[in-house]
Every structure is written in structure tokens, then in C-alpha cells.
């Protein structure tokens, strides 16, 4: 297997730029005290997992999800490349129950991936939460589907989020993820995925089984950009007065 390209935020490239000037940061602190951060305050959960590029399994990243419930059937998550204050915002994920996933058109289903093996294999966990409590929620997550986009290819050492978005996928069987990457994560968070796998053996995936069209339908997926014509900018007829 190829060597893991696994950048932790501690060693990764710093975002270029001057340190925040005092004037600006004072504004931000005063601002946050009075503003409504309700959407951010809905984020109640931190999940750590691994994603790889939908066209390249050899490029794998540790993905820290910060999630909130839109409702019982759906969550929305911000994805960072680490758990610390200096983490980079690299993407987002939507998580839906099987019930909602099954209403999607076939073309759409391909963009979504299953969570069953990620959860049952122990690769997805909630840092800081005792395993027995984690399982109360993760047994639900095991039955869900997710749609992930990354916008910043930190694994290529990009200092800024350049380029197009990437569809990402998640682990669906043993042997896909780099052992060194997993060991590093286990060490950093004091978890044992093998041990947790035993405790999660009781969990079930989607009731109707993993949909054959999910996970790209088994194909690689990539995004390409296309120029489109904009109707003339001054398109409204002039009104003569």
C-alpha cells in the first residue's frame, strides 16, 4: 500500500497571512457577545472519522465532524481537519436516515455513502465521550447515509482552499484505511478501534441493506467545471421616461 499522506494540523502548512490586528479582533469579540449565533449553537456533537476522495482511495484524511440535528432524520456537519482551535474548515456533510435516502432519485443516491462499516468497524467515534454512551447515538448513525464535500485539499499541502470541491467517500470494508493513520488517531484520542468493534458487533446497518447505488455505485466520482453563458447582463429593457 502507498504511504499514507496524513497531515495533522500540528505539522501542516499554516494559512498564510498576518496575525489578526488588535482592532479587528476586538471588534470580533464584542460582536460575538451580542450577536445571534443560533445556527452554530445547534452544533452539539463532535465525531472523528476518515474520508477518502471519491476518485482516489489512496488519499485519506482524518475528518472531524461538528454536527447538529435539523430534525430526527437529518444532521448537518461542518468538517475540520483537526479538533483544535487552529483546525481548518475543510468541508461539510449531511447525514440522513434510510427513510429520507430512499426518496432520492437514483442519480442523487450515488453521491451518498453508507456509515455502517465506519461505525461498526470502530473507525468513527466521539472524542471525549465514554464508549457506552457513544453507542446510544452511533447505533443510529450506522443506519444512515452521508453526503460529503471537501473544499480544501489539505492532504496535498495546499495553504489555501484552491480548486474545485471534491466528493468524498467513507470506509466500507477492512483493508481500505492505512493502518499507520488509524494507529496515530487511536494514540491521539486514547481509543482502541479493535476493542470498540467488538462492542459494536450488535449494531445493524440500514434495514433494507446497503443500497447498491450508494457509495458512487462502486464507481469513482469526480467534479468538473464547465463555463455557461449568462444572458446579457443588461437584460431588462430600458424604461423610457
Amino acid at each position: 500500500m502507498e504511504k499514507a499522506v496524513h497531515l495533522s494540523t500540528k505539522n501542516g502548512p499554516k494559512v498564510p497571512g498576518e496575525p489578526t490586528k488588535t482592532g479587528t479582533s476586538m471588534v470580533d469579540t464584542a460582536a460575538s457577545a451580542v450577536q445571534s449565533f443560533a445556527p452554530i449553537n445547534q452544533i452539539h456533537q463532535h465525531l472523528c472519522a476518515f474520508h477518502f476522495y471519491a476518485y482516489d482511495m489512496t488519499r485519506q484524511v482524518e475528518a472531524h465532524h461538528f454536527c447538529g440535528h435539523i430534525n430526527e432524520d437529518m444532521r448537518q456537519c461542518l468538517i475540520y481537519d483537526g479538533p483544535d482551535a487552529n483546525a481548518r474548515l475543510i468541508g461539510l456533510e449531511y447525514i440522513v436516515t434510510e427513510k429520507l435516502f430512499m426518496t432520492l432519485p437514483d442519480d442523487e443516491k450515488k453521491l451518498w455513502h453508507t456509515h455502517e462499516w465506519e461505525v461498526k468497524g470502530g473507525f468513527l467515534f466521539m472524542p471525549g465521550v465514554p464508549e457506552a454512551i457513544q453507542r446510544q447515538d452511533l447505533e443510529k448513525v450506522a443506519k444512515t447515509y452521508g453526503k460529503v464535500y471537501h473544499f480544501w485539499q489539505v492532504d496535498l499541502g495546499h495553504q489555501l482552499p484552491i480548486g474545485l470541491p471534491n466528493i468524498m467517500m467513507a470506509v466500507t470494508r477492512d483493508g481500505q484505511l492505512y493502518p499507520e493513520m488509524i494507529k496515530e488517531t487511536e494514540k491521539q484520542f486514547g481509543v482502541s478501534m479493535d476493542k470498540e468493534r467488538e462492542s459494536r458487533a450488535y449494531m445493524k446497518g440500514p434495514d433494507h441493506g446497503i443500497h447498491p447505488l450508494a457509495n458512487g455505485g462502486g464507481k469513482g466520482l469526480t467534479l468538473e467545471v464547465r463555463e455557461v453563458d449568462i444572458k446579457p447582463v443588461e437584460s431588462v429593457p430600458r424604461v423610457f421616461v
Partner: protein
Amino acid sequence: MASSDKIPVACPASSGDGKEPMGDPTKTTTTILDKGTAMMQSMKPIRQMSVHVCSFACYSHDPGRHMEVHIYGHRVNQDFLQCAVYDSNSSKAHLIGIEYIVSEKLFESLSPEEQKLWHSHDYEIQIALLVTPRVPEVVAKPELKNLAKSYGKFWCTWQIDRGDRLPLGVPSLMVSPQDVNLGRIKPELVKKRDEEHGISTEALKPSRDGISGPEKKNLVADYWVRFRKGFALDVVETDMKRTAPFP
């Protein structure tokens, strides 16, 4: 497949009826579990967000389509912000995308191919389309001056204005309001925003006097204004490079 500039195949999520996303209301047990575990976790990256602005965005492939956006940003340093974008500032807000904001200095270091994907912020700030809800202008001024000289790149992952009840398709590149016909935000949208937040865009304009845009006008940003071309994304099937069988 579901290109960013195409209408999705008809399905319950694309019906456009009703404003609620699909799904059952959150159970009390879920909320309690959530809140309980949240207390055990440090959410450091999220705590870094300290900027909230409200403005409008347009679709790169159809700039006449406008949307109110609420941007929650983490100012990483003087030259860079990373932001989550929502469709409102309520607890029921939908996460509709991510925007990155860079200073003029960082922007000029990007290749022209990359610059095409970015938009300027000066117009929307100068005419007070971009506002800082509940923060007095005098307090917001330094940040507004900084943002007026910046460039943004915003990928929208949920076309909520079209009535999608789930995030369908692939990301859309978004562009900013501009002082040309399609880029001037529909007055009824501005009025609705103003009423909901108890502000007046008109009344705020004078306080934006003297706020200037980038030192040098970049000719590649806001690509659609000059070249009348937008950008759409398509999904393409390809071979996946693998370490093991998939799925």
C-alpha cells in the same frame, strides 16, 4: 447526473412545496443525549467563530437568482476567514455552504484560473446590503473596512431558494451582488431581510461612506460581469484508485 445548473429529477425532496426539510421533529431523547454528550466534548474549532454577517449571494450560473445568506466566520488571521453559510440566523437554519474570504494580498497570489472562482465584496458593503445584525456600525467598521477589500469563494451545497427539501446535486459556485442589472438584489428580498432584522439598508448606507474596495481592481474576479460566463459543476464517473475493493 445532478449538475449544479440543472433542475433535479422530480422527487419528494425537489417538490418545492413547504419550507420544512423532510424528516420527523427531533425527539426529546435525542436532544437530551446530544446536550449530554456535548458537555463532555470540547468544540474548539466551532468556538473560534466570532463574526456574523448577513448579505445576499447569487448563483454563478444564473446571477439573477438571489438568496439571503448568513455567514458565520472564524477570522484565522488578518488575511483569511473560514465561514459556514446558513439561510437564516435561527436555530432552524439550514447549512447551505462554505465561504472562504481572503485579503487582496492573498488573492493576488492566486493563479488567474483560481481567481475566476472568486468574487469581490466592496459593492455589497458600500451599499449596506451586507449588514452585521445587532452590532452597531461603529463597532463593525474596522471589520467592514477589511472585508470591503477582500475576495470570497462560496460553494453552495443546498439550493434552498429553489425549494429543495434535501441538499440535492453538486455544489454551486456563488457570486456576489454587483452593480449591474442581474447583480442588483431584488428589492423585495432586501425588504424582507430588513423587516426580519429590524434594520434599514437605506439608513445604513451613509455610514458606509469612505469604505473603499481593493487598491487594485482585479480583472478576473467577478468573472461573469466582464466575460458573461458563469461556472457550473458536473459529476463525472471515473475509475477509482484503490487500496482495496470498493465498496
